[in-house]
């Protein structure tokens, strides 16, 4: 599926999520399924929570005990393959990387989009950060419905045709 269409199977996606008990705190979901020579997620983590090892072709392994969900890896991943996820009472909070215009604004409602690019619901924009350290990759914090936990991956402007 991934090799042919560019999106992972639901099983692949779920394999990257820790249990719901762990997700009561924000944790990095690293969707890196393929051995490629790359390791910025690991070297950028201030808590040494992501391990790749000396062979940079290894896929990353997240230690959810160490991960604080800070989001530094989200904008450090050249493949934009990392989000941070936190399960709340009836919503899920995500921090996602975003590299498009217009820049979302706090309080706006955007489309919630799945890995196939389909609109699956609404995303409430809680916060947008763009510091020089992020090097032009915006970090967007959103709230989506809880049932979208394993579905949601990005946002799209409701004005986009």
């Amino acid at each position, binding site marked *: 599926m991934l090799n*042919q269409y*560019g999106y992972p199977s639901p099983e692949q996606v779920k394999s990257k999520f820790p249990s719901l008990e762990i997700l009561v705190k924000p944790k990095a979901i690293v969707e890196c399924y393929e*051995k490629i020579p790359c390791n*910025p997620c690991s070297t950028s983590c201030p808590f040494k929570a992501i391990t790749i090892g000396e062979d940079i072709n290894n896929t990353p392994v997240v230690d959810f005990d160490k991960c604080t969900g800070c989001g530094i890896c989200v904008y450090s991943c050249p*493949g*934009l393959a990392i989000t941070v996820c936190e399960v709340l009472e009836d919503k899920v909070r995500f921090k996602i990387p975003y590299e498009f215009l217009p820049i979302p604004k706090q309080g706006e409602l955007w489309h919630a989009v799945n*890995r196939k*690019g389909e609109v699956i619901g609404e995303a409430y924009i809680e916060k947008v950060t763009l510091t020089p350290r992020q090097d032009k990759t915006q970090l967007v914090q959103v709230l989506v419905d809880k049932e979208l936990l394993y579905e949601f991956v990005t946002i799209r402007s409701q004005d986009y045709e």
Partner: protein
Amino acid sequence: MILNRDLVIIGAGPSGLCAAKMAAEAGQKVLLIDRNPQLGGQLIKQTHMFFGSEKQYAKTRGFDIAKKLIDDVKKYPDLVEIWDNSTVVGLYSDKVLTVLTGETYRKVQAKAIIVATGASEKVLAFENNDLPGIYGAGAVQTLMNVYGVKPGEKIVMVGSGNIGLIVSYQLMQAGVKVLAVIEAAKVIGGYKVHASKLRRLGVDIITSCTIKKAIGKDKVEKIVTVRLNEKWEEIPGTEKEYEVDAVCIAVGLSPLTNLLAMIGCELKYVGELGGLVPVLSKDYETTIEGVYACGDASGIEEASSAMVEGYITGLAAAKKLGKVHPQYDELMVDLRKQLDILRSGPFGEKIRKGLAKLEGVKEVC
């Protein structure tokens, strides 16, 4: 009049710049020649973050890597002389180069030469492939990312290697609709993280599919695609039309070895490395003593490998001319290890196969 220079590096892309930096660090005088007004080669159009490790500037955007590499060589103004806007038009077996800068034609006698000329894009044969609006991916990146010009409004990308996927993403960022990425092979060619970035934007990636023809009067207006079977034969009845005003072709690169052929280096056809490539020693020396080749000119790979090869070649060429870098041995060990790691994963398999074929040639010689 003939100008005398010690080490001449042809091409100031990632590989040539890294070669110049290392040679200068060793104390070697360098003449760095590039045909473009801006140094940096393809890096100046790369707006995405690079892969690899920190040593190859991973997570830095390509155009920022270009700035760093240019700064590196400009730290040695007494050692590195730069001729930009200058095309090497001839390379002769006595190491004489002829160089055209605007209307000025100069002859240079070199003691050693590094050819880091990069690559050219492969083209694809289909009906009306010469209609205006049909671009190579390099041209699309130059228009968009160097000059800020949109190549079209509705586009189809042909080829799903890393270049096809990355340029599609950049087109979407620029507000161009990418209707589909088509790929003749059964699976996506590039990194799946790049494919997933596109797919979540709603871009269709269609494998086992190629472009059959372009239609249009003065420029491309439509294209017809067709699905391919296991034997890469067209499947009748699977044709599909797309209304487009541009098509981008990203079907691979070929090493630019014209100058190497002119000087008489031994070349060998290795499909895995992109076509004709020079037979090289471990130090990137060709079959002509004192003539080196590195980067895409010696075989198509990622820019991260091109940089590392450049460092190795710069060290080796400086040593040949009597300037041994104080950390020569340690650097060589580390750089070769970096290359091995970059080539060790599944994506390096093709490169490893290609290099093994070249290795075989050397043993025969």
